């Protein structure tokens, strides 16, 4: 700035120039005005002078005119000519229209004589415009109204002009000197009042370092002037500027840090990140992206293409980009793509793309190879039996899902290991699993190409046998298979080997004859298998119509059972329970009977499983419980101190017979908890242990006793039962029936009774039919019993008679 400024850029010079300019303009204008005014004044003065002159000579002139005395007139005229302003005098007389010039005096213009060039005519034209002249009429000295002549005075223009110029010059000089003074004063004022303080402030501002907090000081005596305010404003502005610059630089620094952070994140992210346009041209990508896609990370990241990587389907990837860019919702789209490396190794990458809004997409790439393989193996697992490597039921379902009328006929063979569960229970699952694997190995050996094998249950294998499917061929193959499976197995057990023998049964059905789909085929083979097992196993059998008929029979029975409940065909009978020591009847077990209108009495062993299968057990169970309560209430009201024990199916626990409902029913019939005992089977304790425990606990908390029915037929040990809070075990009638001197069943019963006693449990022996059995049981210390020896089950209202007979027997006994 200083380098380019000239003196005329300065404030002082400029304002002075302005002042001088204005002064010159004004001076010029006013001097013009002044000279004009001066001219007019000079003119007026000349006129006045002429008038005055005329006044002095008027009377004389009028006398001269009156008498027509040209001598006198001439004297008057010459007298007037002595005044320098007067150029010419003319006196005329007028006597009643007789006009004549009396006298004329005229000054010779000074130029006219000297130059000789100017004629009088020329001189008159030169000041033709403004010759001030005075005409005055001369009146008769004696008759005031009579005009007797005229006198005319012409002024000398040059004299007037000269005087005028003189005046003007003087005034202009005066004005000029005044202006000069004013300019000087203004300049001094400007210099000292404005320019100096501004220059000082400006110089200071020039050297000011605002960042160090320096501020301008207000020039002396300018605290309240515009300059002072300017300095104040500059200081405020500076302060704000410095503050803003501070904030700005902080922001910039933060931005740089953020940028670096982002760059670090971008570069060091585990996920691959790229930005690409619609055509797949990469705008940028990070190291992880290059690593994941096996792309060389050359220095330049521009001009690279997404499709450089070995995508198996690059077109699909580009389609994803296009879809993302064309979508209107800015949503992130993701898809898995396979990458094939140079050594044919495969990698699955998940690419998630989000449109950035500028026509390009950002993509996040992660390696999902592990997930993909997990998914594949999970799918595999879902259809594969892990133990044997055969298909599982779902796998078999898949394999046979496409059955249609044109499918070649085949045989489905269901193989079941006889008594496998006993081995499993006795020797543990590891042994069972080992056995199953070895069985599967033997099955696999005899499979032919096109055959399939599946493990469809714990010890059930389903084989699809294609090829020859005539009965003869199947006979041979299944016969061989069963024979093969029946060979002894050498099982590794902890601490050595054990040889196990196991047999197998098989049921066979043909497609499409015995079933249109897998479900029907499986049911057919199950029926065939059931019939084999019913006859002792170790054999195979074809599905046939008899089995079909049995199925039909069962189905009809189901229908009948549904009706039976509503029709009241189900009813209860009661078998007394006797205190063996006193032969006193203490209670009765309620037993369900079905009087079928056509078939007569149907065994509970048939219809109870049926009811469980078809979901009728809940309703039946409630009916049984309610009816038993009603009956025992009748007895107790009649003065008989009896309880009733009610069988509860595993399917009823716990929702089918909630403890709350039990309590409510007892209350309805006015029964104490001791009036009822619940009988459950071991199955209850095997299934859903936690729920069963809670259920039993609730009932016992209400004071209701819980009996374990059919003890000994299952596999549970007494010590296992200890975990359940039970009151009484009932020994199954099969043990009691076979019990005699010195056999194992007797020892078993003895052990049960002994152990039950030691566990604080009561024992009820079922199926006591002979006095000998009774004696043995009494000898063992078995507390209670029931059976035909005492009474067969009777209707409720016949129980009194039955008790009477028992009491009578006692009397005999």
């Amino acid at each position, binding site marked *: 700035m200083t380098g380019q400024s000239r003196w005329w850029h300065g404030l002082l010079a400029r304002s002075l120039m302005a002042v001088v300019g204005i002064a010159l303009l004004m001076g010029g204008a006013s001097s013009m005005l002044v000279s004009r005014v001066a001219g007019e004044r000079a003119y007026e003065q000349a006129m006045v002078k002429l008038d005055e002159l005329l006044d002095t000579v008027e009377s004389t002139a009028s006398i001269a005119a009156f008498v027509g*005395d040209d001598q006198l007139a001439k004297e008057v005229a010459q007298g007037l000519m002595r005044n320098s302003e007067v150029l010419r005098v003319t006196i005329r007389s007028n006597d009643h229209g007789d006009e004549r010039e009396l006298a004329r005096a005229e000054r010779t213009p000074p130029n006219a004589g000297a130059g000789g060039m100017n004629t009088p005519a020329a001189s008159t034209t030169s000041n033709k415009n403004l010759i001030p002249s005075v005409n005055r009429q001369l009146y008769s000295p*004696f008759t005031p109204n009579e005009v007797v002549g005229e006198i005319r005075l012409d002024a000398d223009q040059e004299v007037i002009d000269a005087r005028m110029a003189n005046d003007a010059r003087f005034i202009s000089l005066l004005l000029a000197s005044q202006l000069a003074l004013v300019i000087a004063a203004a300049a001094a004022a400007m210099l000292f009042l404005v320019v100096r303080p501004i220059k000082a402030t400006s110089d200071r501002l020039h050297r000011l370092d605002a960042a160090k907090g320096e501020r301008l000081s207000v020039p002396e005596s300018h605290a309240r002037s515009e300059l002072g305010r300017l300095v104040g404003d500059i200081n405020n502005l500076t302060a704000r500027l410095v503050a803003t610059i501070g904030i700005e630089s902080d922001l910039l620094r933060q931005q740089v840090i953020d940028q670096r952070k982002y760059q670090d994140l971008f570069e060091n992210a585990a996920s691959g990140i790229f930005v690409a346009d619609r055509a797949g041209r990469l705008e940028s990508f990070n190291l992880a992206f290059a690593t994941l896609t096996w792309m060389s990370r050359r220095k330049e990241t521009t001009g690279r293409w997404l499709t450089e990587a070995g995508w198996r389907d690059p077109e699909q990837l580009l389609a994803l980009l296009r879809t993302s860019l064309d979508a209107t919702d800015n949503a992130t789209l993701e898809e898995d793509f396979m990458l094939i490396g140079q050594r044919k190794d495969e990698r699955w990458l998940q690419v998630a793309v989000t449109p950035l809004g500028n026509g390009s997409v950002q993509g996040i790439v992660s390696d999902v190879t592990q997930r993909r393989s997990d998914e594949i193996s999970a799918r595999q697992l879902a259809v594969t039996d892990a133990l044997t490597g055969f298909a599982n039921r779902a796998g078999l379902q898949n394999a046979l899902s496409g059955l249609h009328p044109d499918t070649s006929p085949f045989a489905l063979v269901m193989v079941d290991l006889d008594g496998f569960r006993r081995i499993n229970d006795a020797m543990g699952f590891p042994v069972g699993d080992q056995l199953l694997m070895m069985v599967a190995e033997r099955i696999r050996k005899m499979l032919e190409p096109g055959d399939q094998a599946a493990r469809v249950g714990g010890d059930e294998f389903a084989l699809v046998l294609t090829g020859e499917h005539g009965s003869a061929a199947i006979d041979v193959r299944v016969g061989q298979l069963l024979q093969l499976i029946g060979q002894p197995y050498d099982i590794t057990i902890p601490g050595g080997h054990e040889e196990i023998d196991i047999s197998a049964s098989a049921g066979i059905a043909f497609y499409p004859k015995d079933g249109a789909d897998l479900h029907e085929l499986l049911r057919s083979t199950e029926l065939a298998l059931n019939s084999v097992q019913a006859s002792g196993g170790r054999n195979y059998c074809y599905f046939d119509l008899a089995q079909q008929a049995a199925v039909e029979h069962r189905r009809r029975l189901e229908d009948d059972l549904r009706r039976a409940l509503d029709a009241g065909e189900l009813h209860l009978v009661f078998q007394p329970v006797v205190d063996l020591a006193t032969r006193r009847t203490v209670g009765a077990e309620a037993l369900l009977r079905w009087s079928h209108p056509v078939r007569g009495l149907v065994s509970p062993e048939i219809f109870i499983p049926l009811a469980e299968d078809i979901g009728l057990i809940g309703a039946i169970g409630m009916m049984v419980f309610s009816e038993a309560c009603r009956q025992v209430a009748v007895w107790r009201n009649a003065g008989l101190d009896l309880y009733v024990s009610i069988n509860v199916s595993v399917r009823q626990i716990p929702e089918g017979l909630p403890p709350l409902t039990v309590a409510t029913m007892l209350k309805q019939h006015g029964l104490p908890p001791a009036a009822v005992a619940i009988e459950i089977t071991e199955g209850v304790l095997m299934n859903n242990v936690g729920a069963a425990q809670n259920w039993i606990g609730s009932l016992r908390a209400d004071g209701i006793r819980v009996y374990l029915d059919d003890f000994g037929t299952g596999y549970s040990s007494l010590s296992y039962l200890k975990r359940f809070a039970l009151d009484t075990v009932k020994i199954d009638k099969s043990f009691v029936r076979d019990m005699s001197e010195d056999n194992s069943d007797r020892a078993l019963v003895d052990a049960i009774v002994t152990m039950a006693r030691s566990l604080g449990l009561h024992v009820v022996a079922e199926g006591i039919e002979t006095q000998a059995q009774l004696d043995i049981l009494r000898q063992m210390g078995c507390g209670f019993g029931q059976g035909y020896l005492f009474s067969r089950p009777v209707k409720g209202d016949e129980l009194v008679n039955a008790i009477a007979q028992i009491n009578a027997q006692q009397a005999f006994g």
Partner: protein
Amino acid sequence: MALRTILLSLILMLLAPHAAADLVVVANPKSGIERLSQDEVINIYLGRYRRLASGITAEPVDLAGDVEQKARFYRRLVGKTQAEINAYWARLIFSGRTRPPQVAENVEAALDYVAARPGALAYVERAQVDKRVRIVFEMGE
């Protein structure tokens, strides 16, 4: 004599008030002038006209000295005092072109002069008019 004149004038005025106040301008009967207007009398007496309308050179006669009749004449004619009339003539005398009227010592001399010269004029009392002259202008009061 002055006292006498004044006394006489007073007596005259008392005795014949009409006659005493009546000034007339008389001319020679041969002048060819029958009547003069007041303007003509003024112009002739104050030097403007040097000839009469008939072409004869006008010769007005003034009375000498400061006489009452002269003062009355000029007062009545142009409303000016004798001093003013004298001042008037003083300016013209310097040029030498125009001369004041002839001066007669008295009225009789004036009448004589008129009677003797055809272009002469004089102002007299009506009572002083004789047969030798002709009244051409009568001054009203």
